[in-house]
């Protein structure tokens, strides 16, 4: 048994029992981060803050939301938006953060792809991050059902229909997912449960895994330089902070994170108060009506690229293409055959692959929203084929990449 002495202070009392100094050292003051990073490395903290905003605003929405098909719409649009003190604020924060969190996730992902941060021992960081992406997608979709507006209902109808598997006609599976022939009370209740309990639990666990996965391979840096963390940390601790290639998580890295967070929050709250329509679709302010489809149905912007991969093809091919798009990013660390973990700008053909992928996904996103007619259909088809082609080409172009 450990030896306890009479505590000299509250700090000492806690330290003897919880080892708070050790925790602090390991998690904060001697958790080493490369110095050679730019603001894109703060996206993790920006995501954590945004998740925190979602969690807090969600708690207050949860106190008045009623998961009942007869009352859900009014509990959101009347009780929360007009009656509850600051209820409108929670809802706007929740709605805008749900959209913005995906913008940051995409920036975070493309940062990882550009700097090769999924290679050389960092595969688990990438994979846990992709699991988080999937969990956030499920969280966003289930949350989108809850206001029970026209977009909620019809998105629920269309997305659950995907599980029929095209000509497999697995209608039983679709009914099982819904608990009814159409999205109705059972559907709303179970997606409510998923949104407020099961998926958030999964997200919290995955965030732990994602952070843990960073510990051993360490954070990458913007030149792909291999750093001897122990030697550099010793230099830092000896007081030669200026020449050390590492910085401490707290305060060095944290102060830079907070600078980025501060600037990000200006952007975020501007959207919350003055420019929220993009995240809170006006069509969803019409109550759900199972007998009337809105003139245009489209997912939220962050799902558009994968939705567009589904759209230009016939049902079965579309579903296969869609399934491909959903899982292929998981395979990135294994399809990239190059030994180089350096920025894309120094990686020959991969540089073009990166920018082509980014632009192709933006085109897919745009085409996923406009009506699928004429020229837009054609562009969508070629963009979807390009997306698939780029992934097929990836192992070949990276295999022949010169070692830098």
């Amino acid at each position, binding site marked *: 048994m450990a030896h306890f002495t009479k505590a000299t202070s509250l700090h000492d009392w806690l330290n003897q029992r919880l080892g708070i100094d050790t925790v602090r050292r390991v998690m904060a003051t001697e958790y080493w981060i490369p*110095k050679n990073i730019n603001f894109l490395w703060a996206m993790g903290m920006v995501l954590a803050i945004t998740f925190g905003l979602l969690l807090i605003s969600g708690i207050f929405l949860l106190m008045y939301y009623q998961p009942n098909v007869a009352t859900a719409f*009014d509990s959101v649009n009347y009780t929360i938006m007009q009656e509850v003190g600051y209820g*409108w604020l929670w809802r706007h924060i929740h709605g805008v953060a749900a959209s913005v969190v995906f913008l940051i996730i995409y920036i975070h992902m493309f940062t990882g792809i550009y700097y090769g941060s999924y290679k050389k021992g960092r595969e688990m960081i990438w994979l846990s991050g992709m699991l988080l992406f999937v969990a956030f997608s499920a969280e966003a979709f289930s949350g989108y059902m809850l206001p029970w507006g026209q977009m909620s209902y019809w998105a629920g109808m269309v997305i659950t229909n995907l599980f029929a598997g095209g000509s497999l006609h697995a209608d039983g599976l679709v009914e099982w997912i819904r608990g009814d022939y159409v999205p109705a009370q059972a559907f709303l209740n179970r997606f409510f449960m998923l949104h407020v309990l099961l998926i958030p639990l999964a997200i919290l666990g995955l965030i732990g895994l994602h952070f843990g996965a960073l510990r051993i391979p360490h954070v990458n840096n913007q030149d792909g330089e291999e750093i001897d963390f122990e030697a550099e940390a010793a230099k830092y601790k000896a007081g030669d902070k200026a020449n050390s290639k590492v910085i401490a998580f707290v305060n060095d890295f944290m102060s830079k994170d907070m600078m980025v967070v501060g600037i990000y929050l*200006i952007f975020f709250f501007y959207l919350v108060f003055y420019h929220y329509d993009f995240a809170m679709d006006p069509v969803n302010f019409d109550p759900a009506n199972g007998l009337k489809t809105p*003139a245009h149905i489209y997912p939220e912007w962050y799902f558009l690229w994968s939705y567009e991969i589904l759209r230009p093809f016939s049902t079965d091919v579309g579903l296969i293409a869609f399934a491909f798009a959903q899982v292929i990013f998981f395979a990135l660390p294994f399809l990239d055959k190059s030994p180089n973990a350096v920025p894309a700008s120094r990686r020959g053909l991969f540089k073009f692959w990166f920018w082509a992928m980014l632009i192709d996904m*933006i085109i897919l996103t745009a085409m996923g929203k*406009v009506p699928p007619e004429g020229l837009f259909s054609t562009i969508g088809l070629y963009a979807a084929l390009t997306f698939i082609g780029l992934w097929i080409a990836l192992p070949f172009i990276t295999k022949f990449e010169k070692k830098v």
Partner: protein
Amino acid sequence: MKELFILAVVTVFTLLTYYLVEPFAHSQMHKHVESEGFAYKDLPALTKKGDAARGKDLVMGAGACAGCHGIEVEGMPAPMDPVTAAQSYGVNPPDLSNAGAVFDPKFLAALIKNPAHALMVEHKFDANKGQMHPMTSFYGAGGDLDQEVADMVAYLQSIAPKAEELTPKMAFETACGRCHAIHYPYVKDGEAHPAWTQIGEKPTFKKKQDALAFETKVLDYQDALTKYMGTLPPDLSMYIRSRGEHYIKTFVENPQNYLKGTAMPRVGVSAESAEKIIEHLEDVGDSKRHMREEIGKNVMIYIIIFAIFAILWKKEVWKELH
């Protein structure tokens, strides 16, 4: 600065995506209708100066308006209760007390002469096919028709409240409230207003029988209205968020702009009344807008201060690191 360059790249791609999925995509999905400022250019201008006293004689006499319409300010209640009226005419004819303030005078004149034409529902009411609009045209009392119509409009204007006395709620009730319900109660300037049904404000009942009796009346009215319009006109509680100001205004100005062949008539409100109707829809569906603006301003000021202090802290910490 490398970081600023990276920020510029991120910003450009973000804005490009935003532009494509929002302004561009919406321009492809919805056609843009420009408001004509409620000018009703297709209707003839009023050329004669009306005389309210003569107009009163016409409204009460030859015009026979009071046969269907109530005029509460003159102490004349509606000849029928709303449900019976809707069952007879399809929709309850409006009380005329506020008509002179809510509707455009040019529109009122055109309406008196030829309702189906002014209301833009001639596709539904074609006199040649025997489909008569429930409101009969006024063919004159023997004198100059234009003069007589101008007199009647002048009379309606003379009994109507002044522009500043016409509340947003009154404008809504006269122009929209006989077809559209708003089932959200609201509070304005400390005064609570109950939900609105097509037959009036929904009272609070102590006994369930009374509440159900009222509900039955509303349903009977809605049945008659549905038969008349082809479909039950929607509840407008959240229309300010689901449609927005521009759409509502241009739709009300000319419903055929968006829905060719819709049964919704052009209601002929004046530009000022349209503003008031919008204000009423905001009072009901976006009641916290003033608070949002005020809190928004304070939060923005705070968050800028927060960012400045964060930048200063970073500079302090990183002084030793460079």
